[in-house]
């Protein structure tokens, strides 16, 4: 790997680890201190490595520099050794020992950090931004790119979310079983949103999308590695993300255009991720719990299986259960699509038109799709309405292609 690639790569991976370990080892007053130390560490790496070249073990190098920076911090801030020892002792931490960057400590600190960051009091969008920044080491600019918005908006979101983080005073050391259970749902929701942000991202940049998805998978994996958070719903969410990710390469073409499920090249599906998904899905069904992640993961599982007589009936019944647990326009539309697969387009049109989501692009293009075999004129009209409504260039492109196809068919009859 070239050095100019190596540093951003390492940064992404190690930044959040260093912050988590420092924050939780020293109970630093502010997260910002841990962030500053991590940033300075990387700044030094850029300088030194630029002159001397990259060391054999860059990760260990980073950890050593981070440890030294922590010591400097305490010295410069006139925290007496005694005071430091006092604080450390209260938290069951020995200052004689350096910050420990063992795998176990990294994993524990990251888990604790996930729980601090996933605060149910934050609005969903800020939550995901905060997770991206603190847990995944994304820069403000990268987050803005992922959300197709400007840096100022992201800064505002982060600012507000951080106030809650500070006020929350979430005591990591005393992370009890009950606290974990109480907060796990909001943690899973954040990971789920993070994944969806990548999977259904507004940006056409495939790299960003993939990174968001793989970060969500990484966080999910951390959660299954700890006994306290390795719950059926955690496994269900991870299974869902594995199944969805397995199709990442197949669902858009080189230009970033969406490829409909039925037109995807199955050779591009990632078998390894499908196998992982199966593994987590089996784990998810220990116990009686059926969360929305269970239902979504099982739907995604059915999508990985070859066509068979009852496939869409199963999928429809799962969507039925899902919409009964939690209404969302997306679920309602997906359910209508599955309904069409089982009962045909005409019956599905009746079902879909009841939804009356006239300001929803997906709704209009679903009706366009359903009408394409029933009434070409209406189909084109719905596609046109969808085009008029959407802001996505890619969608306009795809829908225009559909209209052209239909117009051509029409003239041939």
């Amino acid at each position: 790997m070239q050095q100019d690639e190596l540093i951003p790569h390492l940064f992404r991976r190690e930044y959040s680890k260093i912050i988590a370990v420092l924050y939780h080892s020293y109970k630093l007053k502010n997260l910002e201190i841990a962030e500053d130390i991590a940033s300075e560490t990387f700044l030094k790496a850029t300088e030194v490595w630029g002159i001397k070249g990259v060391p054999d073990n860059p990760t260990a190098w980073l950890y050593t520099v981070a440890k030294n920076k922590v010591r400097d911090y305490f010295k410069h801030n006139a925290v007496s050794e005694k005071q430091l020892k006092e604080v450390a002792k209260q938290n069951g931490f020995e200052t004689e020992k350096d910050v420990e960057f063992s795998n176990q400590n990294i994993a524990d600190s990251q888990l604790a950090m996930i729980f601090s960051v996933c605060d149910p009091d934050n609005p969903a969008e800020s939550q995901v931004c905060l997770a991206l920044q603190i847990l995944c080491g994304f820069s403000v600019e990268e987050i803005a790119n992922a959300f197709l918005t400007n840096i100022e908006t992201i800064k505002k979101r982060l600012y507000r979310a951080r106030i809650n983080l500070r006020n929350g005073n979430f005591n990591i050391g005393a992370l009890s079983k009950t606290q974990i259970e109480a907060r796990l749902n909001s943690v899973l929701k954040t990971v789920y949103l993070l994944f969806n942000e990548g999977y259904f991202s507004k940006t056409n940049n495939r790299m960003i999308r993939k990174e968001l998805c793989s970060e969500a998978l990484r966080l999910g994996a951390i959660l299954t590695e700890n006994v306290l958070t390795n719950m059926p719903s955690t496994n269900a969410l991870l299974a869902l993300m594995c199944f969805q990710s397995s199709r990442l390469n197949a669902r858009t073409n080189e230009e970033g255009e969406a490829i409909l499920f039925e037109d995807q090249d199955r050779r591009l599906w990632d078998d390894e991720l499908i196998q992982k998904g199966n593994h987590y899905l089996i784990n998810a069904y220990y116990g009686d719990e059926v969360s929305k992640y269970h239902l979504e993961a099982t739907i995604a599982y059915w999508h990985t299986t070859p066509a068979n007589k009852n496939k869409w009936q199963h999928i429809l019944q799962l969507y039925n259960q899902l919409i009964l647990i939690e209404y969302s326009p997306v679920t309602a539309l997906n359910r209508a699509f599955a309904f069409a697969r089982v009962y045909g387009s005409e019956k599905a049109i009746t079902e879909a038109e009841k939804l009356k989501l006239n300001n929803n692009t997906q709704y209009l293009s679903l009706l366009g799709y359903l009408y394409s075999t029933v009434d070409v004129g209406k189909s084109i009209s719905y596609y046109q309405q969808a085009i008029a409504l959407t802001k996505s260039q890619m969608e306009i492109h795809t829908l225009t292609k559909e209209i052209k196809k239909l117009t051509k068919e029409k003239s041939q009859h």
Partner: protein
Amino acid sequence: MKEFLLVYRADYKTMPKGSPEEMQAITQRWMNWVAGIAAQGKLADRGNRLMSSGQVLKSDGLVSDGPYTEIKESILGYSLVKATSMDEATALADGCPILSFGGNVEIREINAL
């Protein structure tokens, strides 16, 4: 949005008793119908089915047993839906599987306490 109670009534004797496959098909029809209401964001509470046996307590303290299987219009279950008017609520009841078994749906607006 107002809330309406849907009460499903039918004669137990006319209810289908078929093979497991047929019963599963009927369950699917119920699920499709009730999920169709949920898909419109108009389901307040999925409600429940009722057991066929029960008791009635009268003012003189007399308790009489079911079975309600003898009654032509016994209550089989209920759901709660959201709608802006009685007409809209009635339209939601359309397609309820109970109608195809000779049963009916009673629609009553909730008069909240």
